[in-house]
Each structure stands twice: as structure tokens, then as C-alpha cells.
């Protein structure tokens, strides 16, 4: 039996060490998961929600020189479509599905967009003007409040590939039957609005298609807006500032409600950081308590003949053991945490279903640095305890 073996045995037999390791593991893993979750959510919103067509559409009101602005926008490579009120959006009746809602008038909003919209069922909405539209996979009528006690959601799958009738809202107004008009537009596919947690009654078509239809129905008197769509949300700042330099003030047409979600994660992040600090303080207190509880054993070891260097060596071994086992504990709790996040949380909190937890290497690095500081501090406490053992060894009798 060597001194090293004894030190290792003592480390693993000390129940307080397990408590310390569990605390380190839990608080470090919690910190990494919470921070990664915030990071993942932000990334998710950035990649999915924020890049959704509606969030990439901007408007400029009353431009001084309309033609000049359109030319300017068309010259910008980040801008993929420029249109006016005709191509923006409007509400329509969808008589084809009214029978499923007790004959109530069911409306849908059709928005004009530039670029392709991917489908989860059927085909993508093409970037070209082709008299087709794409609708949400989870459709809820715009006027759903009119339909009490009925199923609010409707599956549009059977209509994929079929021509659907759309009727402008104005033509169904009382006394306007003489101007009743209906149009046919093919539903090519359904997009995934569940991951967006929004757009339950929004169908999309090419902005030229929409403008073409609307011009047959109505004349917009105050057509003062210019709308444009950019290729990626990442270019928002660049495009807006460039337009600003030219004297145009562009605004996003859609409020971004992601802030609320990210804010709640920020709160969680603060709680995580708070818990992390408190847990680390508890770890330090427990370790100090452990050392001072064993002060007599340290004194005894000196009386029995341990040299200071030997005790220091034991102390280094203990610190290394603590560090290695802290890392193991961290990995175990991290795996448990990821397992819980992936298999348990989405069942109870559906909003987590879409988020792919990305463990950020930066979080690992941060926690690792803190861990090294804690272990170094524990090592210093160890040395202090050795010195106390040295100075007080005569008090053992």
C-alpha cells in the first residue's frame, strides 16, 4: 500500500467529496445547458423564425421619388423583390372549406412574397409568378372566433394540387353581389407553420401573382407604400442603413415576437448564473469544512512522520482527483441534462420540440475556466490547512 493509494482511497471514501462532485456536476451542467439553450433558441429564431418571409419584408412610406427608390432597391443585391400595396397582402374568403365550418364564411390572408417557400407537404412555392399558392400545415380560419364549439384547425392536405376558389372580401359585402368575383388559385403545398408558432391563416403566393389578381378586383387609391423583401435577415442592418444614407426610412412590416421568448431565456440564464455562483460558494464552504474537520488528521500525519513535501504531494493528488472527477461528474450531469431536454421537456413544453440544443463550446470553455479557478482555490485552502496543521501540531495532545 503506497501513500498515493491511501490518498486515492481516502478521497473516494469521503462522502462529502461525492456531495461536492455532485454539486459541481449539477451546477456546471445546468449552467452549460441553460446558456446553450439560450444560444440555441437565439440561433433557432435567427435561422428559422426571423428568416421567414414576413420578417424580411420592409416598407417605405411616401417615398419622395418613387421611381428612383424602386431603381435603388432593384440595384441592391440583397433585395429580392420590390412591390406595392397590390402585391403585399389581403384577406379572401375560401368557400371550398366553408362546409367544414358549419357554412360560416371562412377567410384566409394571402400575402405576396418574393423567393421560394419550402413545403413540408406537396411542392414548394416557386419564386416565379405561376398562379399558385402555399398554405400552412396547421390552418386556422382568420375569423375562427365566429365558429364556436367547432374544431378550429383544418387540414388542407386534400386540397394539395387542386384549384381553390378565393373570393375578395369586398365582393361579398351586402349589396355588392353584382360585382361578385371569384378566382382560382392552385394550392401546391403546405408549409410548416408549427415551427414558426404563428401564421395559422397565412397563405403565400408570388407578389406578382397577387398584384395581378387584386388589380382585377380593386383600385387602391392611396398606394403610397413601397414594399421590398431581402434575401436574408442578416442583411437587414446593411440594407436599412444604405437606404437611410439615400434618405429613405425603411421599417419592418412585422413585429418580432421572438424577443419575448428570448427574454424568458435571459431570465433563466440569470437564474442559472446565480445558482452557479451560489453552488460554487457552497462547494468552497463544504471543502473548507471538510479540510478543517480533518485538521487533526493532518496534524496527526505530521506527528506520525509525514514531511511537508509528502503532505503537499498528497494535497496535489487530492486536487487532481477532485478536478478529474469534477469533469466526469460534469459530463454525466450534462448527458443527463441533454437526455431530459430531448426526451422529457418537449412532451411538457412543446415550444422546445423545434429547438435543437446546441452545446456551445464557448460555454464549456467558460465553465472549464471557472472550474480551474475553483480547484485552484481549493488547492490554496489545502495548503493553508497544511500550514495550520504544521503550526498547531503541538495542540494535538
Amino acid at each position: 500500500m503506497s501513500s498515493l493509494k491511501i490518498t486515492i482511497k481516502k478521497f473516494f471514501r469521503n462522502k462529502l467529496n461525492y456531495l461536492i462532485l455532485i454539486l459541481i456536476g449539477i451546477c456546471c451542467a445546468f449552467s452549460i445547458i441553460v446558456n446553450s439553450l439560450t444560444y440555441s433558441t437565439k440561433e433557432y429564431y435567427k435561422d428559422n423564425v426571423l428568416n421567414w418571409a414576413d420578417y424580411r419584408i420592409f416598407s417605405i412610406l411616401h417615398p419622395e421619388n418613387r421611381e428612383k427608390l424602386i431603381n435603388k432597391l432593384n440595384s441592391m443585391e440583397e433585395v429580392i423583390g420590390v412591390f406595392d400595396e397590390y402585391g403585399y397582402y389581403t384577406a379572401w374568403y375560401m368557400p371550398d372549406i366553408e362546409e367544414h365550418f358549419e357554412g360560416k364564411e371562412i377567410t384566409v390572408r394571402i400575402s405576396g412574397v418574393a423567393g421560394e417557400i419550402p413545403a413540408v407537404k406537396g411542392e414548394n412555392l416557386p419564386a416565379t409568378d405561376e398562379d399558385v399558392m402555399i398554405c400552412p400545415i396547421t390552418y386556422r380560419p382568420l375569423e375562427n372566433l365566429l365558429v364556436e364549439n367547432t374544431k378550429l384547425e383544418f387540414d388542407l392536405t386534400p386540397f394539395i394540387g387542386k384549384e381553390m376558389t378565393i373570393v375578395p372580401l369586398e365582393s361579398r359585402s351586402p349589396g355588392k353581389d353584382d360585382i361578385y368575383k371569384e378566382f382560382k388559385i392552385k394550392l401546391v403545398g403546405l408549409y410548416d407553420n408549427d415551427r414558426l408558432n404563428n401564421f395559422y391563416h397565412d397563405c403565400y403566393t408570388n407578389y406578382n401573382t397577387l398584384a395581378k389578381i387584386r388589380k382585377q378586383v380593386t383600385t387602391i387609391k392611396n398606394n403610397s407604400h413601397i414594399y421590398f423583401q431581402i434575401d436574408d435577415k442578416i442583411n437587414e442592418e446593411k440594407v436599412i442603413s444604405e437606404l437611410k444614407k439615400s434618405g429613405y426610412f425603411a421599417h419592418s412590416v412585422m413585429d418580432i415576437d421572438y424577443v419575448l421568448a428570448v427574454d424568458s431565456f435571459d431570465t433563466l440564464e440569470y437564474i442559472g448564473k446565480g445558482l452557479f455562483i451560489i453552488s460554487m460558494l457552497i462547494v468552497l464552504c463544504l471543502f473548507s469544512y471538510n479540510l478543517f474537520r480533518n485538521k487533526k488528521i493532518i496534524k496527526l500525519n505530521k506527528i506520525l512522520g509525514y514531511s511537508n513535501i509528502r503532505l503537499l504531494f498528497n494535497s496535489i493528488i487530492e486536487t487532481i482527483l477532485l478536478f478529474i472527477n469534477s469533469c466526469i461528474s460534469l459530463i454525466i450531469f450534462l448527458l443527463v441534462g441533454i437526455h431530459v431536454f430531448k426526451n422529457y421537456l418537449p412532451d411538457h413544453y412543446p415550444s422546445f420540440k423545434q429547438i435543437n440544443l446546441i452545446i456551445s463550446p464557448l460555454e464549456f470553455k467558460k465553465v472549464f475556466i471557472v472550474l480551474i479557478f475553483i480547484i485552484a482555490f481549493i488547492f490554496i485552502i489545502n495548503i493553508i490547512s497544511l500550514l495550520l496543521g504544521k503550526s498547531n501540531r503541538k495542540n494535538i495532545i
Partner: protein
Amino acid sequence: MEEKNTKNNTLISLKNLSKSYYKGSKEIKVLNNINLDFEPGKFYLIVGHSGSGKSTLLKIMGLIDKPTNGEIFINNNNVNNLSDRKLAKFRNNEIGFVFQDYFLDKLLTAYENVTVPMIINKEYKKRKIVKKRALELLDFVGLKDRIKHFPKELSGGEEQRVAIARALANDPSIILADEPTGNLDVESEKFIFEKLKEMSKNGKCIIMVSHSKDAINYADKVLEVKDGVIL
């Protein structure tokens, strides 16, 4: 060069030993001009009231504390000016300690506690030798069947027996026992005294501080300390 004591057959020799503490500017004399010789194979009992200086005397003989004045010779070697490292080595080789509170390492088994002084001592390099010696010592104190037990699984008497086995681990010539039966019942006390007596008969110098009335029956020589002097 270490100074040599001239007396033969003396294991520990204390020459004009004094120990004082300072409380502020006031000097408190704990031991005053002690001259004592301890021989191997003898059982010494140190008695005295609380605060008389007997524990301080034991600490100084155990090289745990240093005297203010005077000299200590162990095996004819002056140990007054040894370095901390040499003192540690000296304690490990020459002195076995038995404390009132046993001071066993609670995280080690009875067997492992006995091996600690041998592990510190570089002469015991082979595991087999350490094991053999530890088992022999635990057998000597009647605990061969409890080698894997932790201190919390042992009675007070058994813990003290482990402490005695540990004190004998490196076969030291001196055993210093400070109130070894202070926390024990009569039966355990008798066992401990008998073992200490047996050890003295085997050539060890046993120096014990005790308040027990029965201790005197085992001692070869009784030293009474009063107000820092030997009566």
C-alpha cells in the same frame, strides 16, 4: 555534529529542561529545570494535577514541542536542533504515540491505519512486509478479525488497541501514551495497561500520563509533576 550524551543505558535524557509561555509580557513557567532519565524496558507513569505540566513534558519528549531551555537526548543524540524534516523522521522511527482520543483516520480501516507509519517510513518498501507486520500487530492487540473495520465500526477500546498497534508499527523504542484509557471502560483499560506492560517487558520504554488509580499497579516508576517540577 550532534552532541552525545555520556550516560549508558539511558534512552531519553532531559537536562535542565524548562518551558515557558508568554501571556503578553508575563512569563508563565510550565516546566522548571527538569532533569530526568528514561531507560528502555521500563514503564514510567507521570501523574499530576491538571495544568501541572505533564502533557507539556510529554510533548517535548515526543518532539512535538520545543523546550525554552535545556537539552533532550534520545539514544544519546541531542535532538534539540534537528530540522523539521529530521524531527519528522525521528518521530516516525523512534517514537510511537497513543492519544486519549485515539486519533485514528476515520477514512481508513484498522489495517490501513496501522500501515500509515510504515508507509511513511521508507525502509518498508515491500507491500508483503508491511502487510505481515500490520497483521502481526493487530493480532497482538487482539483485533485480527477486525482488520477491515473502519473506526466507526469499532468500540472505543478497540479503537485504542488499533492506535497501540499503529504506535508499534515501526518498532519504536519509545511509546508515549497520553491518557490512553481516559475514555475507556475498566475492562478495556485493563487490556491496554497489560499490553503496555507487555511492551515494556519487550524492551520498550513506556511513558504514560494517566489519572487512573490502577495505572500505578503497572508502572515501574511513578513521576509526579507539580507546578512544573518533578517531586
